[in-house]
């Protein structure tokens, strides 16, 4: 994938329209926080999970009219005037899906090129529009596009943010996601997350013999690709921080082992050449380590091995089952699950395995911990009363909340900004599974549509 570059180069038309202002992003500064405070007051060792009801109530109304083009041009991705409509649609969908915005209207007036940098504030005021997004799509030579993105506050008639992106024509959606990210970050104070991808397991076939394929898609479900053909059972993928590879488990050769999959070349590499069952792979921040689980004589412990290869090093050494694992954002700690005290519970240890201590003490069992990229929360699967539910707690084990209430919701994975969780929802009896997303407040639960069934979603970081 070609890299996106922020447009910092001279562009006569835009500069003419925008005066002498450089086409650069402004420093984000929250205007309308509109988001609940993270993490409730710490409650040490709650006897039962705390229910959360409701969620964010303040959503931001915003208008995103189709973007004009200075010259209608055919590109590999279609005509620039059609793209102007599609870019606005991608931004609209991103912001709506966040649950923090209500994009207004589907038949907004067309915008002329001069209006992109000089909006008709009188009209938008009369339309009760508070926030306005404008932009343009310009075809450059060599089939590249420049997509401009402007955010205005209508009541104050002021410009809040502007960015321009020069992208290969086929990467136009990334420019739209980046524009949506600027708007989202500027107006909510949260980090960006729309320009990111999700790897997951695509599922089909009967419950007793599901065909499972490694798949990757943009966070909105677009640009979907199957990476393996389904002949071999594959499970539990995770994206590397550098976005170049995926770690996952495969039953290639009727042995359960972990591999890396190079996204560009499709090449696979065995990570640990062990006669034992190896599974549950994760990659540490900075691509330094691969964390994994290994079962020896029925006992499962957590190990790490240098990403480039080397000798596995045990981080846990107990009887029973120690598995899963998720690094803190700085890589200094790992949260994992262990049944050393009976049922599955969450534990935190230093990255070298020292200072292992339990953090979950509520009723039921706790599994699949995932440390937020923001560092403030740990998401998990709670098992109790025959149900799997997604929840969050602080790394100290306080402030526990359950977010979902279905039959089986499993395996949360954080959006790059630590605001949204994706997980798999299994349907009773049929074995049907689908990819879901929910805000960490418990609001805005939604289905991420995939071509087949889906499980084991893993949200990658912001794309470079």
């Amino acid at each position, binding site marked *: 994938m070609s890299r996106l570059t922020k447009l910092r180069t001279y562009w006569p038309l835009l500069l003419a329209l925008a005066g002498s202002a450089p086409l650069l992003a402004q420093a984000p500064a929250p205007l309308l926080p509109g988001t609940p405070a993270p993490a409730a007051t710490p409650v040490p060792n709650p006897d039962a999970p705390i229910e959360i009801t409701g969620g964010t109530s303040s959503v931001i109304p915003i208008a995103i009219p189709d973007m004009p083009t200075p010259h209608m041009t055919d590109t590999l991705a279609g005509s620039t005037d059609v793209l102007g409509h599609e870019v606005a649609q991608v931004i609209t969908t991103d912001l709506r899906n966040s649950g923090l915005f209500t994009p207004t209207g589907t038949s907004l007036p067309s915008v002329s090129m001069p209006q992109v940098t000089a909006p008709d504030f009188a009209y938008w005021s009369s339309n009760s529009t508070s926030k306005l997004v404008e932009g343009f799509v310009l075809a450059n030579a060599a089939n590249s596009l420049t997509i401009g993105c402007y955010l205005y506050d209508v009541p104050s008639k002021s410009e809040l943010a502007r960015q321009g992106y020069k992208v290969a024509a086929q990467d136009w959606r990334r420019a739209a996601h980046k524009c949506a990210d600027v708007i989202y970050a500027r107006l909510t104070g949260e980090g960006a997350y729309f320009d990111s991808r999700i790897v997951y397991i695509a599922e089909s076939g009967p*419950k007793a013999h599901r065909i499972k394929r490694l798949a990757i898609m943009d966070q909105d479900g677009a640009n979907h690709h199957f990476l393996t053909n389904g002949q071999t059972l594959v499970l*539990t993928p995770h994206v590397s921080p550098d976005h170049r590879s995926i770690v996952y488990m495969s039953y290639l050769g009727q042995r359960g082992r972990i591999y890396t999959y190079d996204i560009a070349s499709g090449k696979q590499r065995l990570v640990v050449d062990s006669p034992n069952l190896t599974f*549950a792979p994760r990659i540490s921040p900075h691509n330094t380590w691969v964390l994994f*689980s290994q079962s020896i004589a029925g006992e499962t412990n957590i190990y790490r091995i240098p990403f480039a290869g080397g000798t596995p090093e045990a981080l846990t050494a107990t009887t029973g089952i120690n598995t899963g694992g998720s690094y803190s954002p700085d890589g200094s700690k790992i949260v994992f699950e262990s049944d050393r005290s009976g049922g*599955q519970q969450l534990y935190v240890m230093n990255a070298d395995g020292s200072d292992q201590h339990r953090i979950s003490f509520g009723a039921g069992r706790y599994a699949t911990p995932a440390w937020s990229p923001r560092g403030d929360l740990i998401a998990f699967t709670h098992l109790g009363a025959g149900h799997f539910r997604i929840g969050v707690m602080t790394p100290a084990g306080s402030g526990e909340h359950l977010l979902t209430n279905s039959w089986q919701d499993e395996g949360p994975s954080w959006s790059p900004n630590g605001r949204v969780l994706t997980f798999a929802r299994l349907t009773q009896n049929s074995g049907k599974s689908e990819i879901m997303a929910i805000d960490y407040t418990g609001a805005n639960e939604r289905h991420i549509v995939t071509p087949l069934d889906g*499980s*084991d979603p893993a949200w990658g970081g912001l794309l470079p």
Partner: protein
Amino acid sequence: MKKLVLIAVAASALSLVACSKKPPKDLPPPPVGAPGANSSATVPPPMPQGPVPGSRDDFLAKVAADRVFFDTNRSDLDETARSTLDSQAKWLLQYPAVRITIEGHCDERGTREYNLALGERRANAAKNYLVAAGVNVARINTISYGKERPAVLGSNEAAWAKNRRAVTVTLN
């Protein structure tokens, strides 16, 4: 039956008539359906058929079961499981060239990765029992499928009980 008797009588009458003139060159074929001429007399009895000794079919025919079952979240073997594994060990000691894979499985009520570990634990429990019963450890491979390959569909206790299992598969 009456019809058959009539035919037999008629046939006797015909042969008597023939005898009275000149002896036939060949005896006539016995009448169809005549007493003492049923099909089992003319078709050779089937060879004693059964699985080839030492084969997978033979294993399945001779042992109590190819699988043992476990309680929820447990990997210990109950009396039924031990008895089943005893029958497997007996067969395996009879055919020392046969290698086996023990597949560990779980029901759908555990998380995916935990179940991979639990399935391995179950397979290992069955393996340890067979080894203690004298089966060479080098003949035994284990693999865990966690909750990926349920034997019985449905989300109920009956289905789950059948899915918490360790299955011995012979490799020919």
